[in-house]
């Protein structure tokens, strides 16, 4: 009996002990992530820094043009013409765009992704800068990547500055219990701009020059890009404070006139000039395409004057930067505000009579050569004339006007002007091989000219180094500071009649050179002319008659087009389009203003003769609203986040 009991007992004990043994294995409950690196082991080598800062590049260029890069019209085009929704390019699908705000309520939205996204990016920047400075090896390569970190923090704060003006400044990766810093009030826009400049100075000091060290990696940020960004920010904030101060607008920076920033521009740009001199892209001297083809580079890495670009390669990327979709007329349409701002080839301003008669080809022949390299003209060839395009894809005929059956799913232009900047003159037009140029030398040059013109220190030498260098690329007549033909500097085109002709000519130069590159709206706002340009504006297009003549061909013409008599070859050849499908009837599916120019919004009362046109609220729309929920959250915690003017 005894033996039996002790046996069972011992088995029991053994089981218990073994169980404890299994359960209490050392570190049994201390598990650690197995497929990702701990931050303490990161930020050590230049490679670590590179990988981390790589994550910031997605902020640079969201403007791809289509998915897939195969040229399918239904491939989800995202043809983001960067100036769409400014006066120079309208979004046709609806007149209720963001520039048409007659009935817009001034209630701030709860959230704004620019605000939340901006601070999310800044947190990454701060995290990176903190740990990189703390842990990274002291090498030139690591130093360069830290410079990139500062560049991106400046980039991100500049985004907030443009959207919201002054914002809370955070330069460290905060924790949830840093309540004082979390509920800090907005800094002034001046302080934000100074913070950006300070970061850029650090970035400039650390970054390698283009092509050297880590900056030799195609697509990376370099010292030139930081210098351009510094010039951009200084010009933006300098002119904003200068013009809004002069107008004593609601957006003025109290006690500041912007001169401090404007004066930063010359030393900044001189660094670029000292290094690059007169080197800009010239297409080996072919003035007819030099400007146009700057934007059609398969590899922008070694192009003169290109400082920052996003590389695209249809073979590798799901998203591509695709010229073909830019010209496929997907709604955004160039307006008269861009077309009319061009000078004639000889440097004189255009003269307008009550009857508009300029056909596309006439404009192409008469205006600043950059017009013909920006807007498609029929003499470019009516159809698949791009070398080697051989007939696949949509033919390059006159653009379809507006959206109507059967062309409801592909694009159209409602003004008749089609973007041609960056045309890819090769078979790969639909492949999405083109690099997207983000920063170029010309911006620095024109910033220098503008700053000096405002400060009143500009001279012919400055003009020759800047404006005339750019004009000479396309063979445009040079600007002579002493012989400017003073046109009427129309306020509604963004000019300032009270200012000097040379300043106005530099504004024009900027508008022409950077057309459709996304500067227009910011320019109107910093020049404090936003409402002058937008309010009452009824966007106009090309001469309608030219389109009626093209689309409403007689059967005899069609027969000619089809090649029935090669000797009498019509200008417009067979392009796969049949007469029956589509015809334009003025007043029905298309219409024009009294002077003969197309009216893209002809169905909407405000855009008919006598209508009110576009409208923005000058007391409100220069800046976005601070997200309402954030303001309430501050309030609930006894802190204040002030709202921008005009919003409640």
């Amino acid at each position, binding site marked *: 009996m005894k033996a039996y009991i002790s046996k069972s007992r011992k088995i029991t004990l053994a089981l218990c002990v073994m169980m404890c043994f299994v359960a209490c294995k050392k570190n049994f409950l201390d*598990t650690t992530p197995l497929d990702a690196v701990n931050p303490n082991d990161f930020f050590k080598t230049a490679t670590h820094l590179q990988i*981390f800062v*790589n994550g910031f590049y997605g902020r640079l260029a969201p403007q791809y043009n289509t998915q897939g890069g195969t040229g399918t019209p239904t491939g989800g085009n995202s043809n983001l013409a960067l100036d769409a929704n400014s006066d120079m390019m309208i979004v046709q699908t609806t007149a209720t765009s963001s520039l048409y705000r007659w009935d817009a309520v001034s209630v701030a939205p709860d959230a704004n992704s620019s605000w939340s996204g901006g601070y*999310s990016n800044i947190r990454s920047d701060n995290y990176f800068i903190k740990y990189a400075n703390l842990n990274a090896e002291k090498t030139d390569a690591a130093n360069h990547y830290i410079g990139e970190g500062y560049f991106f923090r400046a980039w991100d704060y500049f985004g907030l500055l443009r959207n919201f003006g002054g914002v*809370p400044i955070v330069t460290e990766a905060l924790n949830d219990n840093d309540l004082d810093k979390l509920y800090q009030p907005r800094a002034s826009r001046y302080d934000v701009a100074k913070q950006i400049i300070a970061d850029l100075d650090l970035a400039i000091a650390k970054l390698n020059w283009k092509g050297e060290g880590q900056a030799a990696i195609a697509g990376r940020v370099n010292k030139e890009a930081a210098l351009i960004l510094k010039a951009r920010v200084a010009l933006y904030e300098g002119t904003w404070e200068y013009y809004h101060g002069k107008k004593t607008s609601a957006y003025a920076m109290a006690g500041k006139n912007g001169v401090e920033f404007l004066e930063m521009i010359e030393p900044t740009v001189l660094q670029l000039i000292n290094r690059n001199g007169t080197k800009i892209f010239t297409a080996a001297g072919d003035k007819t395409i030099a400007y146009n083809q700057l934007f059609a580079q398969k590899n922008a890495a070694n192009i003169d004057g290109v400082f920052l670009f996003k590389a695209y390669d249809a073979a590798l990327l799901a998203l591509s930067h695709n010229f073909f979709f830019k010209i496929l007329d997907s709604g955004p349409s160039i307006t008269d505000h861009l077309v009319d701002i061009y000078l004639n080839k000889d440097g004189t301003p255009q003269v307008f009579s009550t009857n508009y008669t300029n056909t596309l080809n006439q404009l192409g022949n008469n205006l600043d050569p950059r017009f013909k390299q920006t807007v498609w003209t029929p003499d470019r060839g009516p159809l698949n004339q791009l070398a080697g395009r051989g007939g696949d894809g949509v033919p390059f005929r006159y653009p379809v006007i507006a959206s109507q059956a059967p062309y409801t799913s592909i694009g159209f232009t409602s003004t008749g002007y089609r973007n041609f900047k960056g045309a890819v003159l090769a078979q790969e037009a639909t492949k999405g091989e083109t690099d997207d140029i983000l920063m170029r030398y010309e911006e620095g040059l024109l910033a220098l000219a503008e700053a000096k013109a405002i400060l009143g220190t500009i001279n012919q030498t400055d003009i020759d180094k800047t404006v005339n260098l750019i004009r000479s690329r396309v063979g445009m007549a040079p600007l002579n500071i002493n012989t400017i033909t003073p046109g009427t500097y129309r306020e509604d085109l963004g000019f300032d009649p009270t200012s000097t002709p040379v300043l106005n000519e530099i504004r024009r130069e900027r508008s022409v050179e950077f057309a459709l590159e996304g500067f227009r709206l910011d320019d109107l706002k910093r020049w404090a002319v936003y409402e002058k340009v937008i309010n009452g504006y009824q966007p106009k297009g090309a001469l309608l008659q030219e389109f009626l003549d093209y689309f409403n061909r007689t059967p005899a013409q069609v027969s000619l087009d089809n090649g029935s008599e090669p000797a009498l070859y019509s200008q417009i050849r067979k392009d796969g389009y049949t007469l029956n499908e589509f015809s334009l009837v003025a007043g029905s599916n298309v219409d024009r203003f009294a002077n003969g120019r197309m009216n893209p919004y002809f169905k909407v009362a405000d855009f008919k003769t006598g209508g009110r046109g576009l409208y923005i609220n000058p007391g409100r729309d220069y800046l976005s609203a601070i*997200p309402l929920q954030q303001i309430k959250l501050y309030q609930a915690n006894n802190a204040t986040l002030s709202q921008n003017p005009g919003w409640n």
Partner: protein
Amino acid sequence: MNLNLHNRYGGNCHALYKILLVMKMITFLLIMTIMQVSATTFAQKITLNRTNASLSSIIDEIRNQSNYDFFYNKKIVKQAKLVSINVKDASLDEVLKICFKDQALAFEITDKTVLIKGKEIKFNFFNPIQLPAEKITGKVVDENGNPIPGASITEKGSKNVTQTNGNGNFTIGVKDKAAVLVISFIGYQTKEVVAGAVNGSISLSPSQEVLNDVVVTAYGKVKKSSLTDAVQTIDGKALENRPIRTVTDGLIGLAPGLNIRMPSGAPEANPSINIRGFTSINSTGAPLILVDGIERPIQDVNPNDVETISFLKDGASTVIYGSRAPYGVLLITTKSGKEGKVSVNYTTNTKIGQMVLAPTQPNSPDWARYINIAQRNGQPNGTGTDGVDAVTIARMEAWLRQDWNDPSFNALRTQFGDKAQAYIENGQFPSGDAGFKGWTREQSFATTKLYDTYFNNHDFSQQHNLNFSGGTDKVSYFSSFGYNNTKGLLKGDLNFNTRYNFQTKLKYKAADWLDLRTDINYARQANQGPNYTGNGGDIANYDAIFSSMMQYFATPLKVPSGNAYSWILGAASILGDGGLINNTRNDIVLSGGATVKPFKHFEINADYSRRQSFTEYSKVTKVVYTELPDGTKIQNNRSANLSSISKTNGVLGYQMAKLSAQYSNSFAQKHNFLAQFGVQTEETGFKSLTGSKTDLFAQDVTESLSAAANNPATSDRIYDWSTLGFYGVITYDYLEKYMIKFAGRRDASSRFAPKSRWGFFPSVSGAWNAAKEKFWPLKNIISEFKPRISWSTSGDLTSVGADNYYTYLLTVPTTVNKNLLLGGAYSNVASTPGLVTSELTWAKPTVLNFGVDITALKNRLNVTYEWYQRTVIDQMGPVDPLPQVLGTDAPQKNNAVSETRGWELSVGWTDQFQAAGKPLNYSLKFNMSDYIGYVKEYNSNKTGVVSGIWTPGEQFGQNYVYGVKGIAQNAGDLRTGTLSGTYNYPGYIMYNDVNGDGYINSGNGGFWYSRGDVVKDGFNYPRKSYSILPTVSWSNFTLSAVLEGVMQWRVYNDTEWVWGTKAGADLAYFYTPAFKESTDLGYWSPGNTDAFFPAFNTGRGSATDKYSLNLANLRVRNVTLAYDLPQKWVNKVKLKKVNVYFSGENLGFIYNKSFIKYDPELLRNGVNGYPPLRYYSMGLNINL
């Protein structure tokens, strides 16, 4: 085991580690000792040498040598013959056999005792003498002597049957007095008496099954009458003979408080399951599912192998599973072998699946007209244009009539000459524009019924199950094999789910103090579906497939040559040409355990199990082509751009070890006591490897990574977690009248930081068996009346997120960004870690439960009612709203409390009466439950400053809608009651301006309690769901049904399925299915001013009461008719039992309140899913 020790471990690991080292030594030594001890014990033998000794003296000697006790009647043994024996080292059995060789005595060895008794005398009954019929009269009474009317009396082996009358009396004629009468009544044990022995009253005793219904609970099997917790049991028979794929499918409606969502009819779809409510801030309330004590996917269980299922609903009952089971446990117990000869059971079933309540597609001309209205109405007045021109509509009409000479085709004949006829008949002509890829929707005028095109009307699937069971007094076994194939309705054989099961369960009595058990399980699941447009995820993208079926009704399926699918339809991809998605999972679960009973009343259970789950995923994407008019092939519109292949192989290893010690005893037949303490630990590790490549060399032939060209990419996923828990349960009852139970556990999870990973969760419950009291006045009516109460806490970590394995540790996740080229190659990118906290710890669901069990009217009526309140304290709510200046979300914290209240009622009635001379048994069960949940505390957003985040007081699932005032008939109507900030025209909805401020809006910036003109409109989940379960059996027939209903349920659904189009659709082609179910309801137009819907495609704007769907319904979930073949026939073919049955699942609705008749499960949220299917099946069940 005491809890202090574990406290120490939690607090001081270093000291413990030293202890462990010592323990290691001790363990080793102990094992050595035990092995020696057992060697001597088992070798103990008996040595005896006697001649003509008395049996009693020999017994004494054996007792001394063997430690065995002997029980016998001294008188008998004295009369026994003398014994001579000479053995050395013989076993007890051998010795006794010699001693009893010629005795009139027999012996029996049981549990350390030897019982000696007289030998039984067996009688032979061959050649029975036929006697004249005898009339037998008697009376059937219950245990208290009260007569039982309606009891049935059958002469065994004959069809001779009768019933007791109102006084319990009966008379039956039998062939002789030796005939055996079988007396049965529902709720009582069946009794057999020899006819000749009937003398007055025959007393039946209540069925043990009813009184002592055994319930499987966390700590073993418990008599239902002594249960203190909320536990519901379902008999596995409810799942038998049904064409269901998973156990979950079969559970719908079987128990109150059990919520099952069955949103998809896809063959591999797994319904989600919940006990007592989905409502909580961020927990799904999913129960822990244990199959024979091991966590396994419920879909791996063969419904035919299930013996019982217990739902443990409150924390007090789940304490043993603790941290993993805060929201209840589903304990599935599979069948096991019973002592006896082998029993072989084979069942097979063929089912036919059908899509039900699928939408009805209009003919193309009607569809086109709706598109035109939609496009015109969807734009500001006068700016909308037709989507389909008049000529095309005329062609659609003509095509339907097959009138090839219609004038509308003339232009085509001119244009295409002799090719025109083929184009016209096919219903599409080529676009002249190369950019439109030749065949376009604009040039289409056919009518293609997409549902008929892609789906079969019905599909056959099969299942087979075979099992063997049996055993001896030492060993019992149960082995089962199962095969279940469920096909999807997609044409072709590409869409299916197949399951193979194998299970063997063994139990053996190694010694009388040691029971061992082994369970081997294998399950294989394989499913396959089409890889539609290359965008499929883990399974076929059914949402995208069904969404694509709302477009392009006019496009013919194929191009005129018949060689290729049309350019615009997704058919090629949907029917499998675009590649397939395959998932295979092989699960092996091995478990074993031992029960040691070292002393009386004491037992130790040790269990270990390991699950290895091997998953294989493969997605092949093929480029599909279509044919242009000139014969060249181009990529189909719905094709992926590149062919590609992606494979993932994963291994999940799970192991669980549990050790518990239990002591139970009764003192003085009054005090019943049970204590159990245990420790349990779990560990899971997962690893997977994914590889992918693009451009298969031969996409239609070889689907291998090795046979693909470009863009190789690999990645892996690794994680692990572990838990450790100690628990104790003490139960005590007095005379089975007063019962109380204390339980507690201390748990740790690796997911939390060391300082916050331990939690202690106590619970207590009690019950009072009032009907056992002497003073109970209603004894004859109510035989059981047991109120219960329980209060319990448990630990929940599910709300940290299922994939959040390391809540307190930061990582820098890195990945390859394929959208960013730097230096000409893809970039490696890192992302910024968010914020974490080491404070995060267990959420604590606390359940207060009141229940009452009632058994009445001679066990015919059973009622159970439960009321509960589940408060989840320290819940991981939404992260605290902090200024976005932070740049990331605040870390997750234990910052909220939510509460769910609900009740459950279950009423069962079972009875029997005589019909056409045979007993008819019937039962009817009614279940009903309801719950509501709300936020109790969430201080971070107390005032509702941040909209879209919970605020205290807010109820989960509450619908908020505008009231519909009517439809604006003219411009005058529009001045009031239309939404601000949008354009309005006659035909639009007018809303009630509830607060009279002249605007229709939702109030003050989204504060939940200040909602402007928005009013409450019911709840978006089933409220007051109920089920009715009737069963009738008569003769060899059994008919049973499951009816399942919901009393209150409202959702607002703004999809095209309900409205016929999508609001403001300017590209109406994509968004205007105009299904007949919607269009039949009518749309406002100047000529139809009292239509149900507003003008087609207009400002339906926001959710409204009129157009919110009332999803209340009563559904026939299952009807089964089974027939046992007559025993005579069955015996002839040497079988035991043959059963044939017909069964239908999801047969239809008794009523369905929604104004649009799709399946409520589908309308619940969006409708792009796979409609649930209806199944008819026929099956066979053979026992040999």
